[in-house]
Structure formats: structure tokens, C-alpha cells
């Protein structure tokens, strides 16, 4: 399976993602934002970081960069595109997934482990994951998912919510919402579910001695689903 990770000026989780993808069997290529052609890929990842210094709005500049035209075409033709953290912010700015990510409700940069409940498994990202709840890491200042009431109704009707913040038992309540996101939303799909944007970092949970292994479950499962 071939993957591509896009590096924007200010990306800082691109190499972590490269390590994670390779660890679980992807042949990964790093792609510079100013390139125009995407290598042949089964998966494209927009990594975390602070692309363009978060100027204007997080992800807004990166969403207009040269490579993104190819990424948008790839996504619109059914290609798998996953945006993590800043990558999620870039995805919402392209319009590939609905909504926006606002400043965290309590104005704090949040860096901690969280639990997320998988809301939908009828997609290539979470199909066959045995667990209902995964422990991932978040590190962000603008992760407060917001959308209009009409958009919320649409994403609920289409089952586009991927994961919600919860406790270790999968209970989704306001007290387990780290950043003020509507309905504890931590990640969403596009309608076709080939595009996934999420704030948590699975690539930070791939080593027992450093973190946990729920990211390993995620990536192992993902590559199997793509085969």
C-alpha cells in the first residue's frame, strides 16, 4: 500500500506520521506543498502542525497551496484522504468536510491523552476495529468543532460523525469534552466517507514504551482495510 504525507511550511507531525505509516507496512512518500503532482497513493495524509504559522485562520493558507488542488481532485474521485489536527483544519478550509475548528472554549492549548468513541464503522478507516473506544493524544489550540444547525443535521443524518470525545467506558458527556466541540465531535467524514478529519493523533500512540498502542490498532486495521 502506498501513502503520501504532505509537508507544509510549519507542519511538525509529518515525520511522526511517516514513521507510523512505515511501521505498519505503508510505502510512504513525503510530498512538498509546492509540488503539483501527487504520487500514486492509496492514502494521502495531511499531518498536524502549524502550517503557515496558523496565519489568518488555521489551515486557511495551506488549503490554497499548490498540492491541494491534486489532493482535492484525489478526494473527489474517491481517494482516501486523512487530515490529523492541523490536517483536519486544512480539510475544513478546503470544504472537503463540513464545519470549522474554532479556538478551544477555555482558550487553553490542550495537550493530553483522550478517549474517543467510534461512531461509525461502515467505512475504511474504522471497519473491523474491535474496540469501541480508543485512547489517542490531542495537542491543539483550535479544536473546537463548530458547524451550523443545518450542517449538523446533515452530518448526523448521513452518519458522518467519525469519533466523539468520551470517557474510558465510551460515555459521551460534556465533562469529557476537552475543547467545547459541538456534541463532543472529535472527527468527521465527508459524505462518501473516504475523507476523514480528526483532531486526535493516532500516530502518537504506536509504541508501548512511549505511549499506548491504540494508534497501532488503528494503522494495522487501516492498511488491512485498504488491501
Amino acid at each position, binding site marked *: 500500500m502506498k501513502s503520501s504525507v504532505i509537508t507544509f511550511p510549519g507542519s511538525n507531525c509529518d515525520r511522526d506520521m511517516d514513521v507510523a505509516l512505515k511501521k505498519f507496512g505503508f510505502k510512504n512518500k513525503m510530498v512538498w506543498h509546492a509540488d503539483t503532482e501527487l504520487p500514486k497513493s492509496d492514502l494521502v495524509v495531511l499531518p498536524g502542525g502549524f502550517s503557515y504559522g496558523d496565519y*489568518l*485562520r488555521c489551515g*486557511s493558507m495551506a488549503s*490554497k497551496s499548490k498540492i491541494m488542488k491534486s489532493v482535492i481532485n484525489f478526494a473527489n474521485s474517491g481517494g482516501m484522504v486523512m487530515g490529523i489536527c492541523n490536517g483536519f483544519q486544512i480539510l475544513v*478550509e478546503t470544504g472537503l468536510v463540513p*464545519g*470549522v475548528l*474554532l*479556538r*478551544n*472554549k*477555555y*482558550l487553553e492549548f490542550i495537550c493530553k491523552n483522550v478517549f474517543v468513541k467510534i461512531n461509525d464503522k461502515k467505512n475504511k478507516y474504522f471497519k473491523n476495529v474491535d474496540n469501541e473506544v480508543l485512547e489517542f493524544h490531542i495537542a491543539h489550540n483550535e479544536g*473546537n468543532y*463548530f*458547524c*451550523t444547525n443545518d*450542517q449538523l443535521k446533515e452530518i448526523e443524518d448521513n452518519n458522518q460523525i467519525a469519533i466523539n470525545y468520551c470517557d474510558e467506558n465510551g460515555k459521551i458527556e460534556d465533562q469529557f469534552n476537552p475543547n*467545547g466541540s459541538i456534541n463532543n465531535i472529535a472527527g468527521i467524514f465527508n459524505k462518501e466517507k473516504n475523507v476523514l478529519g480528526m483532531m486526535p493523533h493516532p500516530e502518537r500512540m504506536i509504541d508501548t514504551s512511549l505511549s499506548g498502542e491504540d494508534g497501532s490498532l488503528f494503522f494495522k486495521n487501516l492498511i488491512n482495510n485498504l488491501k
Partner: protein
Amino acid sequence: MKISVIITLKKDVLDPQGKVIHQTLDGMGFDDVNEVRQGKYFEIDTKENDNDKAKAKVEEMCKKLLANLVIENYKIIDLN
């Protein structure tokens, strides 16, 4: 010609920065403030000299980049 743009958050969007500024003003004794909403301001100097054309271009810039219409409104102001 110069054109300026003011971007504001829509009414229903939470503005925690505005809230903190409001609280701080309150603490400083400016206790008659109802609400503070923080926004963005741009000055755009364009080569276009036709007023209507320049404004139309800036409007396009607002829609495509400067504002995110899910959460923000924009107002274009002629500086000349």
C-alpha cells in the same frame, strides 16, 4: 486604490477572546459594557482604480480566503 475589510464573527458563534476582553474591561472599571466581539481588519491596496471593480474583487477575496462564511461575516469599506 485602498479598500478595507472588517471580518466579524457571526452572532451565534462563541467568541471566548471577546468574553475575556469583556471580563478584563469589567475588572478595570468599564462596567457598562454589554458585550465585546473580537474581529479582524484588513487594508488592501489594489492596482484596480475602478471603484466597483475593486470592491467586487475584494468581495471575491473575502469569500475565497479572508473570511470563512460558516462562522464569519465581512464588510467592505471604501477608504478613498
